[in-house]
């Protein structure tokens, strides 16, 4: 009885989380251009997606801004974390506090303050200002992934490598970097996700003549979103689904290996 109740609860929450996604997927196969009325099944929005230059341009901007800002945010976070290792507790607390400001601040305040800064410095709002703003908002998330790993890192291996005659750069590349790879990958992925899904900060820092996916959707909302957009997001979601499934599979395989290893050790 209790178990049924728990499963029912999980099911209800999952339904709540996926209901709008199912609506969007259904929308992408709807022959009608307008949401809310179903006039039959069609593949045409998937076919037209490639020809819709506005959406492709917005998609390209989202992708390039996301990748560039994620790389730069991850690099800056890594360098900063390495520097913070040598700091006292106070300096570390101060740096961490400041780094967390964009994370704790409201998006709308961050967006407006960056817009005022860019205009105050005489910059023209456009691609570059979006890029800068996205580094600002993803940096705290990148630090969150990298900093704990860097701070808990042991100096012994690095120094051993140096004693064995490895030049500092080689020692860093071969000893420290591999240890930090999980954090770096996580930082990159999280930064990219932040950048790709951000709307509010982009909206205030973008200027005229450039759109990302989110601002393009917002602009279309008043007149009705292009169904090609539903097709694109359905494709993207399926991609994420496949990735997650592979991750699950990988996890299971790794666990089976580990369990097998443990049994061997025990035997």
């Amino acid at each position, binding site marked *: 009885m209790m178990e049924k109740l728990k499963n029912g*609860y*999980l099911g209800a*929450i*999952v339904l*709540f*989380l996926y*209901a*709008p*996604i199912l*609506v*969007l997927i259904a*929308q992408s196969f709807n022959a009608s251009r307008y949401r*809310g009325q179903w006039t039959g099944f069609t593949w045409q929005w998937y076919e037209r997606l490639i020809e819709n230059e506005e959406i492709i341009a917005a998609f390209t901007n989202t992708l390039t801004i996301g990748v560039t800002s994620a790389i730069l945010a991850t690099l*800056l976070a890594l*360098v*900063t974390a*390495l*520097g913070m290792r*040598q*700091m006292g507790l106070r300096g570390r607390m101060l*740096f961490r506090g*400041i*780094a967390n*400001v964009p994370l*704790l*601040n*409201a*998006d*709308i*305040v*961050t967006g*407006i*303050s*960056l817009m*005022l*800064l860019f205009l*105050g410095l005489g910059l023209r709002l456009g691609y570059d200002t979006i890029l*800068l703003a996205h580094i*600002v908002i993803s940096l705290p998330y990148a630090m969150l992934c990298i900093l704990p790993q860097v701070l808990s890192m042991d100096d012994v291996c*690095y120094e051993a490598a*140096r004693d064995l005659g490895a*030049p*500092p*750069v080689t020692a860093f590349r071969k000893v420290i970097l591999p240890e930090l790879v999980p954090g770096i990958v996580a930082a990159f992925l999280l930064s990219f*996700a932040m950048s790709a*899904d951000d*709307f*509010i900060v982009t909206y205030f820092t973008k200027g005229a003549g450039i759109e990302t996916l*989110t601002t393009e*959707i*917002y602009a279309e909302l008043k007149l009705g*979103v292009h169904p090609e*957009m*539903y097709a694109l*997001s359905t494709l*993207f*979601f399926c991609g*994420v689904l496949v990735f*997650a499934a592979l991750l*699950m599979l990988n996890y299971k395989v790794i666990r089976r290996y580990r369990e097998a290893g443990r049994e061997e050790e025990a035997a």
Partner: protein
Amino acid sequence: MNERIAAKLATHRFLALPFALWAVLFIVLPLFFVLFTGLTNGAGNFTLENISTVLQSEYLKALGLSVELALVSTFICLLLAYPLCLILRERKESRGLLVFLLFLLPLWMNSLLTTMAWQTIMEKHGLINMFLAYLGLPEVHLINTSAAIIIGMVYNFLPYMVLPLYVSISRIDESIIEAARDLGANSWQTLRHVLLPLSLPGIVSGSTMVFIPALTTFVISALLGGNKVLLVGNIIEQEFTAAYDWQLGSALSMVLMVFIILNILLEAFTDSGEQGKKGRS
């Protein structure tokens, strides 16, 4: 010689220097720009007029409504997330990862699009009303009301509650719960006296993470409130993009910052409380 310098540099605090510059330029300075704009008039002279305009009743009303809706959404998120995290904790090993991925996947769908999909679900001839009509029940009026905005906020911000709460609940040692059971506590008493106090840091950090975006959103209220329910975020957005009264918009942002600072203090307070407890044990 060169190598020794490189070695020194590779582990030196100078490495944090770029970030210090970055922080001053892109984190601290922008906030001063907001303060400056909020405290000056169009000619750049110092004035408190914007602040006093903000304290007019219509803006205060919007602020009050925003706080109310954000508090209700935060509370509902907590109410939904707590049992969820307890169930997830039980299934940690078996199907834990699968369930967890199931909750993270929706985050990858564009949040503007999912919010818009809620329009399709909640509108007059939407899915909910179609379902109710099918059952022969009277239709409900949801779209363009505060309830619709709250549903949208809960949908969008629930993961922010689940993640910190799950971390804090899954860290609770099973033996403590068993001890409570052995001492004769029933489920409710265990929840009230053991689980709730131990998960308090998670509750606070989840609540602060939901409250701020819920307080400041303008997208959800614009889409699901149909611009009939005005929140602070909507007013700020309009001042910047339609009315071009940047001074007033900045002054309103400054009021929001007060809430953000209160939020940070609340979290810092419970955080240090936890460390104090750890130090004693």
